[in-house]
């Protein structure tokens, strides 16, 4: 049972081991209870357990008296958009995102298309643990139907926000690696719609993931080879459910996940959209540099978790938002991390400049180092509290210290961030500095401080 993670972000586990039919039925029955019946949209990514999970979710939702609309295999941001723009009371995305194929998860979505925040998730979990479920009588059961156009409507919404004439004028050749995931049909579809030529790999949704479905640099070798082989102007890698995006330049180089939000920010600020930029606490500080270069635009930092970024973007009327892991959201389209929208915006940016590599080269870059220390969850928070009590290190500017979610110390061109993983028994330490040596030193220092305190 140790692989089961029942927490704020949903219920996640390994199929055949911890994410059992019982857990899935109970969790979705709890969600149906939480939304008090009403219409719920569901979708799934392409992993082989999707169908099994899907049927268990249906059973739980229907039993609670929900009307269920099934979007089938479709990107999570398309589901979130459909929930947001319909009268649905919520949604469940069946996807373990970038996790390996043996995992799956249920991610609960509220009526405005955003993931549940921690207070809402707490209510849902209370219902789940109390097992006090809404049970519709036979004559109150609702039907179940399919929606096969939500994915296309999502593409429409993206295309409507882009300058397709500009993009089309460049006749760009774009390589995509869809990892046989939920974007396999939609990524080529969007590219054609906005006037790009496409070379696509790994678009068989009934085949296994050809590599880990996380668009991190180390998983991009196939795409990099494809870009080089085809002479593509850009390459994009998707994760299994379409929230994160990885980027490859025309020379086959992969600038890393943190570059995705930098490119998105550069695009939106260049266009002059009003409102602040919202990123989480561990996203690269290059975002602040880009915002400064565009006339001291405001950057708001939030806690870790898509729900926090989305909610902050909504409340502060942000122009763009995202995370260093490759997920970006564009409030004019959606309040979800959206790899398809991100690809579209990056292509528009490239279309207005010389080339992707040149845009990347024009943006500031820092060295980031990440580490994780195993620590039982129930000790981890206390360790952080003791770390807080020790106060700022000498190099940090106390005025920039952030203690709301984890601990972040910062000064000018460097920062370190320590937090408890929400899903695994780990304390994570992340640092960024001008050089690799400096960021590694920061991580080492904090790892040893924490080891003392555990």
């Amino acid at each position: 049972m140790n692989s089961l993670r029942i927490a704020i972000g949903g219920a996640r586990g390994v199929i055949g081991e911890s994410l059992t039919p019982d857990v899935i039925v109970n969790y979705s029955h709890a969600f149906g209870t939480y939304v008090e019946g009403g219409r719920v949209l569901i979708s799934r990514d392409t992993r082989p357990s999707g169908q099994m999970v899907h049927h268990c979710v249906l059973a739980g939702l229907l039993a609670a008296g929900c009307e269920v609309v099934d979007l089938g295999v479709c990107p999570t941001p398309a589901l979130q958009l459909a929930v947001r723009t319909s009268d649905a009371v919520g949604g469940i995305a069946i996807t373990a995102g970038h996790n390996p194929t043996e995992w799956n998860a249920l991610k609960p979505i509220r009526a405005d298309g955003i993931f549940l925040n921690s207070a809402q998730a707490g209510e849902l979990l209370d219902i789940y643990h109390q097992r006090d479920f809404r049970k519709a009588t036979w004559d109150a059961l609702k039907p179940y139907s399919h929606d096969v156009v939500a994915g296309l409507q999502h593409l429409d919404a993206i295309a409507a926000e882009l300058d397709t004439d500009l993009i089309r004028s460049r006749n760009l050749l774009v390589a995509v690696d869809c990892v046989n995931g939920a974007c396999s049909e939609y990524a080529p579809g969007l590219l054609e719609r906005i006037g790009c030529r496409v070379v696509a790999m790994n678009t068989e949704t009934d085949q296994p993931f050809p590599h880990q479905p996380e668009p991190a640099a180390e998983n991009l070798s196939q795409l990099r080879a494809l870009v080089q082989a085809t002479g593509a102007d850009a390459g994009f890698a998707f994760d299994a459910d379409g929230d994160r995006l990885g980027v490859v330049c025309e020379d086959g180089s992969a600038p890393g996940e943190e570059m995705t939000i930098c490119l998105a920010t550069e695009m939106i600020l260049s266009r002059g959209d009003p409102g602040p930029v919202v990123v989480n606490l561990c996203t690269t500080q290059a975002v602040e540099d880009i915002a400064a270069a565009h006339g001291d635009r405001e950057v708001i930092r939030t806690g870790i978790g898509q729900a926090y970024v989305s909610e902050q973007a909504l409340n502060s009327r942000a122009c763009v938002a995202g995370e260093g892991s490759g997920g970006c959201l564009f409030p004019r389209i959606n309040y979800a991390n959206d790899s398809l929208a991100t690809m579209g915006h990056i292509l528009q940016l490239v279309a207005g400049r010389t080339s992707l590599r040149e845009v990347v080269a024009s943006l500031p870059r820092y060295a980031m180092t990440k580490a994780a220390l195993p620590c039982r969850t129930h000790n981890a928070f206390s360790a952080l509290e003791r770390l807080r009590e020790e106060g700022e290190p000498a190099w940090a500017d106390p005025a920039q210290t952030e203690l709301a979610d984890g601990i972040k110390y910062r000064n000018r061109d460097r920062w370190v961030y320590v937090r408890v993983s929400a899903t695994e028994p780990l304390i994570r330490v992340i640092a960024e500095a001008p050089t690799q040596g400096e960021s590694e030193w920061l991580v080492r220092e904090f790892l040893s401080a924490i080891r003392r305190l555990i």
Partner: protein
Amino acid sequence: MPTVRTLKTGVSGIRGVVGESFTPQLLVGFAQAFGTYLDGGTVVVGRDTRPSGEMARNALIGGLLATGCDVLDLGIAPVPTIQHTVRRVGASGGIAITASHNPQEWNALKFIHRDGVMLRPYQAEELLAVYYQANYTLVGSGRLGKLESDPGAARKHLDEILDLVGPDKELIAKRRFRVVVDCCNGAAAGLTQPFLRSLGCEVIAINNSRDRGFPRPPEPVPQHLGQLEAAVREHGADIGFAQDADADRLAIVTEAGVALGEDFALVFACDATDPSEPGPFVTTLSTSRMIDEIGERQGRQVLRTPVGEINVVEAMRRHNAALGGEGSGGVIWPRLQLCRDSFAGMALILRGLARRGGTVTEWKDSFRPGAVVRARVDCSAAEAQSVMMALREAYSGEQVDLTEGLRVVWPDGSWLHVRPSNTEAIIRVVAEADDESAAQALRDQALEAIAAHRGR
């Protein structure tokens, strides 16, 4: 108030009230238990038209796939189709989602063995043990079961009936029967009309929708068949057939628009049995003596078992029966399959009517006159034991059969059967005699004996 008491788990399946005890947790649990029990292979899943069927179907599919079983989903399908499909595709088992003749708010699961027969009691005990233990086999994501559907399953089932009727199809078609069928908006809706047309009948179908809910209580007993009686008269039909929600039971309305007693579906089917099909008749201790009359006429033995489809089926198998079934309208034709099948029943009865000529009323009147009456008495299982002991003493002077409860046969051929129910806290009383009042007298005598014993 705890509502679990509306849940009935037992050797004949599980049954509960939707919104109370028929929960997705229960269903996904039993699906995993059944998948664990079968240890892989294909499971055929079908349901009747109850609205809760969709929820149950999803829970079963999810639970079965998780145990590594493949699922062949028939959607809405008659129970005999599900049983037929299990054998046809070589499945490991099947699950029918139907509460049969129970009201809308109930639903139930019936588990089918790889031989197409409902789980025998010892197999059901195995399944319950797995469920209670709740330690299910769950496979990794690479070995999960696959889901397929088979929209042609009912067609293949009914085609096999037509094949078995064979050359007699011509005989039936010649009569150009006008038939009214009441599908109760159940699993047979949309299937019975084309099936009977293939037999050359002119068919008027009422309550022939899959999504309108039951128009009448689904149990096909005479008091529920007023609409069918009227339709038969209105259309001047030769016969009316009524099916229940899952199409295993059959009832008959005469050309005069009179619903016959529950026993007649089996009686006619027996009478229509081809002399070329050898073997005895098998029915329950509570079924009409007309079966014995037919047996004598055809020179066949009649074997009687305790009430319950599985008891009849097991005896039929052991004795290579020609035909069998229950007085409640369940006709089992072993050349097709060892389960109650209203479609097989219709085919046999139409064949019989074609062969003998005349009307249904004339056919009915060809039997020795008689009447069957029934009663039920609320009684706990514990008390029922002592009641039965007392009754055995009370009737000790008569010719008694103690196979199940107490069955008394008098020299004039009238009989009485008293038995505690296996599923409810009641005692059931059935009596048959030459006329209604004589049958009522036998029944009332038994009821008085019960009341007298309990009054002490």
